[in-house]
């Protein structure tokens, strides 16, 4: 190698090595843990209202991630996901308010109840393809809505179930620094912890062999079937897991918003959660939580200025559909790839 060639190659190699090292450092930072810890400081550094928003984002993040297990991972378009959220909210609310069951039993029961309902509905849904699947999920969610709206004795009908009690969180006083927190702030911390554990589990599931099979089904169902995979069974399993997680989110939401109402289960809510998920980006695990944060924050900012939030939401959706089909995280990813190519060129 001539001296001249060495002189040109070496700096480039050195630059590449630095970039690699920088990237390694960047990816070694536990971002999820940092964000989780930052979210946990909200009750101390922010106002009561900030805590309220953070709780909303946290619960929506779990709901949107559960939907993305179908939408992004398995490629199933569910337009009735709010049904399982609603079943979870009602199971938890009815158990806690009507029967005085403790939260620590009612919460898992909500997840199980929603998963059971998802098993029944999903059994029929996964036999249909694409648009028909979307329509049947919508039909089931409207059945849940009709029951919630009309079955006065159990669900409270159009009056709903107001004043669901908070769980007993006196034990938190024993934790240093938590003594002065209001019950709402304590419930937010509990919510954050439960959602973080749920998200960690979903993250593992998506990366497990089971999750890989779901992705294969999304990309090419025929090929998956040729490989001997029972496509419907895997789709049903994804549907049940997603339904159960949505039920957990619903249970938390019912307590957080101090009541469960039939409006929660109306079909347009399912559309909103779909928008949230694709706003973040269905192709990324952290897309839906980013979408949840963005949408809750935007709603908060925009409703300060105008009552026409639906109009703005519709405009955002149009911009997404025609301009940024990958969502926020997809857009950032694209930007990152472009920058990298620019620097390498």
């Amino acid at each position: 190698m001539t001296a001249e060639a060495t002189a040109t190659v070496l700096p480039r190699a050195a630059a590449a090595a630095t970039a690699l090292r920088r990237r390694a450092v960047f990816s070694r930072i536990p971002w999820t843990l940092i964000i989780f810890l930052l979210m946990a400081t909200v009750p101390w550094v922010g106002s009561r209202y900030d805590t309220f928003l953070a709780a909303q984002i946290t619960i929506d993040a779990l709901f949107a991630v559960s939907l993305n297990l179908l939408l992004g991972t398995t490629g199933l378009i569910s337009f009735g996901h709010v049904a399982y959220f609603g079943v979870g909210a009602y199971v938890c609310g009815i158990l806690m308010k009507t029967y005085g069951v403790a939260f620590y039993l009612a919460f898992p029961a909500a997840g199980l109840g929603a998963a059971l309902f998802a098993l029944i509905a999903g059994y029929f849904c996964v036999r249909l393809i694409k648009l028909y699947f979307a329509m049947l999920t919508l039909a089931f969610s409207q059945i849940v809505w009709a029951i919630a709206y009309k079955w006065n004795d159990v669900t409270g009908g159009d009056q709903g179930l107001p004043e669901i009690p908070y769980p007993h969180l006196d034990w938190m006083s024993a934790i240093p620094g938590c003594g002065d927190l209001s019950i709402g702030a304590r419930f937010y911390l509990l919510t954050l912890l439960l959602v973080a554990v749920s998200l960690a589990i979903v993250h593992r599931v998506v990366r497990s062999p089971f999750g890989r099979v779901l992705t294969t089904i999304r990309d090419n169902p025929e090929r998956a079937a040729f490989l001997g995979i029972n496509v419907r069974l895997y789709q049903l399993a994804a549907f049940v897991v997603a339904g159960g997680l949505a039920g957990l989110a619903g249970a938390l939401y019912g307590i957080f918003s101090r009541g469960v109402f039939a409006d929660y289960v109306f079909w347009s809510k399912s559309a909103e959660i779909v928008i949230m998920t694709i706003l973040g980006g269905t192709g990324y695990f952290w897309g839906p939580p980013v979408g949840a944060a963005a949408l809750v924050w935007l709603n908060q900012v925009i409703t300060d200025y105008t009552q026409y939030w639906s109009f703005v939401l519709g405009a955002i959706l149009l911009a997404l559909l025609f301009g940024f089909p990958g969502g926020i995280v997809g857009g950032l990813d694209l930007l990152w790839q472009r920058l990298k190519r620019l620097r390498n060129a």
Partner: protein
Amino acid sequence: MSPSFLFSQFMGGLTTAMFLFLIASGLSLVFGVMRVINFAHGSFYMLGAYLAWQAVQWLHPTGGGFWLAALCAALGVGILGVLTERVFFRALYGREELYQLLFTYALVLVLGDAAKFLWGTDQLSVSTPPALAGSVRIFGTTQPLYTMFIVAIGPAIAFTLWLLLSRTGAGRMVRAAQMDREMLDALGANVAAIYTAMFALSAFLAGLSGALVTPIQSIVPGMDVLIIVQAFIVVVIGGMGSLWGTFWGSVIYGQVLSFGILIFPGFSLFSVFALMAVILIVRPWGLFGRPL
């Protein structure tokens, strides 16, 4: 239960059915040709109602009446349909179903708020046209003339659409597009124009039904999302894309709702959703549709 009571339940169900048929026929037409569920169909219906109200306000001083207003409203919504299809929808053909569904949902959000902005949130109403303001007595029941008119206009529109689809050259093109759009395209037909025309016709029907509903229902925000679910059930029961399927689907829906109230009071809503779910499970393509 006296016969006259049963008859009035039956007529109530039939009125609901024929109204829903007017709305659902457009939804079904668009699905049949484009394979898209148009959530914005309910918004077109709502705009038809608001535009009819507006036209009545403008025409009133000149002595022009309800019928002219209804026609103007339907034409206005039809033009909006053309614009929607030409400007936006065209860009989404060939994309995933999810994007097409969400696009129509974005229209629901935008048009719903636009109507609130333009006409406010108060209830608006239009008086019944004088010629149909009376009522007649049949089987010991009192039937308003306007509902009799609606019951008559449903089959009339169904028949007109059937003639249009099965007895004209344009209708043959539409049916060919339903069966195989690539083939039709390859044969040199202007498939894009067919799509635009179908979307316009569908929006026109939605606008017309919105205008015709104004004498018996007040115009309120939110009527769009309520009606689309019902129209959707009708289309699913009858079979997406099938004209007569939609017709009989709406008749079944109307009667189930009307008599369901007698059998399970308070659960008639549940019974129609349950009927929809059962049909989707047993025959996803509906009672009169063909498998895709």
